[in-house]
């Protein structure tokens, strides 16, 4: 390096040290309360309009599911054929369907079947998928190969087709299953073919987490594999699984309606949106008295939309990278 005279603009400059006081490196900001990942996610969630809209809607839907009697005093199975297809009138805001049932009452009572199928299926699918995916990702080798191949087989069969086949087979061995039997049959049929999706996501998340150093650190203090899996790896891979679960809840509700519409899901004796949409088919063809179709279809759409919105809001909060 040659010793030359400093050029203009390159003379030795020293900032007055008062301008940028040196900071102690051991400082911890204690002004705010401590925040874990979940708390931080809640903070993001709280500021999202999608979350509040869906939360309010879902709260209303849940109340309807639990206490339909609060919203209507009309029996959804009380048929008065004389009023068949009558339009909205006092006391019967959505009018009557072809059988002379009160449409509003049926929409209120039909919520239970749809939401219960959606929730139960999601819970079962998530538990099976999370566990199988975590075990596959964590242990690898042949365990992974076996679980992944089984999941692939189930994944390759279209959900609806599989459910149709499964439910028809079930009808032969378990006819006349009543309300809860009917609901559970649909839940099992959907869950049996829905879990591989969650397995794949859980497996991917676990693979990512298991390579991190805190897992090695935990092994080095002598933690067993299972302890490591349950106390470190699974809790850290929950976020993407929860996101998938909330979004797929809506999908299962739609699947239930589709199956009932096809006449294979819930038996006609059970009041459900899918069954009512199926019953409204003839009106679709003739083109009049469409209120019979729009009421249950609208209720279904609002419910699914609420779950999807919630899913999106949760994803934004838990996985900021996926945000657009």
């Amino acid at each position, binding site marked *: 390096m040659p010793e030359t005279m400093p050029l203009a603009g390159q003379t030795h400059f020293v900032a007055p040290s008062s301008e940028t006081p040196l900071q102690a490196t051991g400082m911890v900001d204690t002004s705010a309360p401590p925040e874990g990942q979940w708390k931080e996610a809640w903070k993001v969630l709280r500021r999202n309009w999608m979350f509040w809209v869906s939360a309010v809607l879902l709260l209303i839907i849940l109340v309807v599911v639990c206490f339909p009697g609060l919203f209507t005093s009309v029996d959804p199975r009380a048929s008065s054929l004389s009023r068949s297809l009558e339009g909205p009138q006092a006391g019967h805001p959505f009018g009557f369907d072809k059988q002379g049932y009160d449409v509003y009452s049926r929409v209120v009572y039909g919520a239970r079947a749809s939401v219960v199928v959606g929730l139960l299926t999601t819970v079962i699918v998530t538990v099976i998928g999370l566990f199988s995916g975590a075990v596959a990702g964590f242990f690898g080798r042949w365990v992974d190969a076996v679980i992944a191949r089984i999941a692939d087989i189930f994944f390759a069969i279209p959900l609806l087709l599989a459910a149709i086949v499964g439910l028809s087979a079930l009808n032969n061995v378990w006819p006349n299953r009543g309300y809860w039997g009917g609901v559970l049959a649909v839940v099992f049929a959907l869950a049996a073919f829905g879990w591989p999706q969650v397995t794949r996501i859980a497996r991917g998340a676990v693979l990512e987490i298991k390579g991190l150093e805190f897992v090695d650190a935990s092994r080095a203090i002598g933690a067993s594999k299972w302890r490591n899996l349950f106390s470190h790896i699974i809790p*850290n891979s929950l976020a993407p699984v929860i996101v998938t679960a909330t979004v797929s809840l809506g999908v299962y509700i739609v699947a239930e309606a589709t199956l009932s519409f096809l006449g294979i899901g819930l038996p006609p004796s059970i009041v459900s949106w899918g069954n009512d949409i199926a019953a409204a088919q003839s009106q679709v063809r003739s083109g009049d008295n469409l209120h019979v179709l729009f009421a249950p279809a609208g209720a279904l759409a609002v419910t699914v939309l609420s779950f999807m919105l919630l899913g999106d809001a949760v994803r934004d909060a838990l996985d900021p990278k996926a945000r657009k």
Partner: protein
Amino acid sequence: MTAVATERPLLQIRDLHIAFTSGKKDVPAVRGVDLTVYPGQTVAIVGESGSGKSTTAHAIIDLLPGTGHITGGSIEFDGVDLTSLSARKKRAYRGDRIGLVPQDPMSNLNPLYRVGTQIKEVLEVNDVARGKAADRRVVELLEEAGLGDAESRARQYPHEYSGGMRQRALIAAGLAARPQLLIADEPTSALDVTVQKQILDHLDGLTDELGVAVLLITHDLGLAAERADHLVVMYKGQVVESGPALQILQDPQHPYSQRLINSAPSLRSRRLMARERAEVRAEAAETALEHAEEVIGHGEGPESAGSPSSADAASADEFGGQVSAPVIRTTDLTKVFKLPGKGLAKRDFTAVDAVSFELARGTTTAIVGESGSGKSTVARMVLGLLEPTSGTVEFDGVDITTIRSRAQQLAFRRRVQPVFQNPYASLDPMYSIYRSIEEPLRLHGVGTGKERERKIRDLLDKVSLPAAVMSRYPNELSGGQRQRVAIARALALDPEVVVLDEAVSALDVLVQAQILKLLNDLQAELGLSYLFITHDLAVVRQIADQVLVMQQGRVVEQAGSLEVFDSPREEYTKRLLAAIPGRSVELAS
């Protein structure tokens, strides 16, 4: 690197302010930076992460990330104020007159295109050459950047290149349009030291020959001192000191520059470090001997059976400390991985090849090597996280692969603990700091809840963290603080050996210096033995007694640390030493 004394500066930044928008607020990142670069000069901006050095550089070429925007000041390039130009006019400067060599060679080449195509793109976009002429030029450029057999290299894809080769290709791309200014943003921080030296030497020669001015962005003061004429030290978005490189190094005025120079491992006086080390050693050896006697005296656990008495092996080492019996001894340690070969056949890859070394109680053995040398694999085998293919790891005389029962395994775990490299991945983000440090205590059933809390407070105090961090989560702490927590967790079970796998490599120099000091203090106080894995020879001097130099799975040199630095025997060690940046810079003190 001769500064040509022309009247007009090539680049003149005046009172530059840059802010990032967060919500509705502007968060300032760069505050009032002044900077002047003359044609043909090399100017370095030095600072730690978050100092605003990269932001300043990116503002020049209008490549500010995200919500960043210039809020004040001017950037004059060759007499034209770039901040007043339209986006289209600014673009004309990029590549054509100002080239960029980006930081990460791994992600800055598009993996789907041939390397030649990507350099050709630079030529075509800037109207330098087209078609066949451009193809010929690409080969010349790659040759110029020091890639052999450039013609066939141009037709290869990025994944067929090593990290160093990719960086050469990026340099070729940066210089393709013959810019007057080249911005090199940490151009070699992702590379091994020996490769770093080659690349920087080449870049120096090339820019000298072409008369290109270089704005070098780096966190490495040694590197900046060696390569630049003029130095700009940045701290928290402001320039704290700037001036001739040599003058700042030998006589820093601002307290921050002083701190930085005192902490840079490559620049610290060797004598001083040896003296510090000797003090640590003397104290550590004493504590360790006491500890060893205690262990043997009480016959605690099956491990102590058959271990040689520590006293009879004692002799003085080069730091004047007592050398006691080895706590860890590896014999012909070998690890072979099966990799997919041609077709269905598997190929053997020997990651670690017959490595034998000893770690004496209360001392530090450093394993140094570049990426792929097998040093971390050795660490994992010593920790018992990976089974050796052959050879043994003896802990206190007992082969650890023979430990089978759960009780014995837990006993072994208590005595050997790791600290890993990445401060962002070494703590479970879902665990509070308290829970993280408590985990080992809980798992080993140590103490009652109250006793554990007292222990955790004590541990945090040992690593100089306030007790207030207990309720915090890792995402609320800085990298250095997390690494302290990781050390506290490793010490929770009162281990005898701590395996530090690149434990300070990801930290800024100031923080690195603090952690190294902490490790030295803890060694003296607790008589710990360290196995210190690193790629950075400069750091080794501050902490190691014994040094193992590894290359491609083999130990190429093994000696005392003073000996390795003063009279290295092997060619490879000499090369590693020569590659430490800033070694040639004479300091006044």
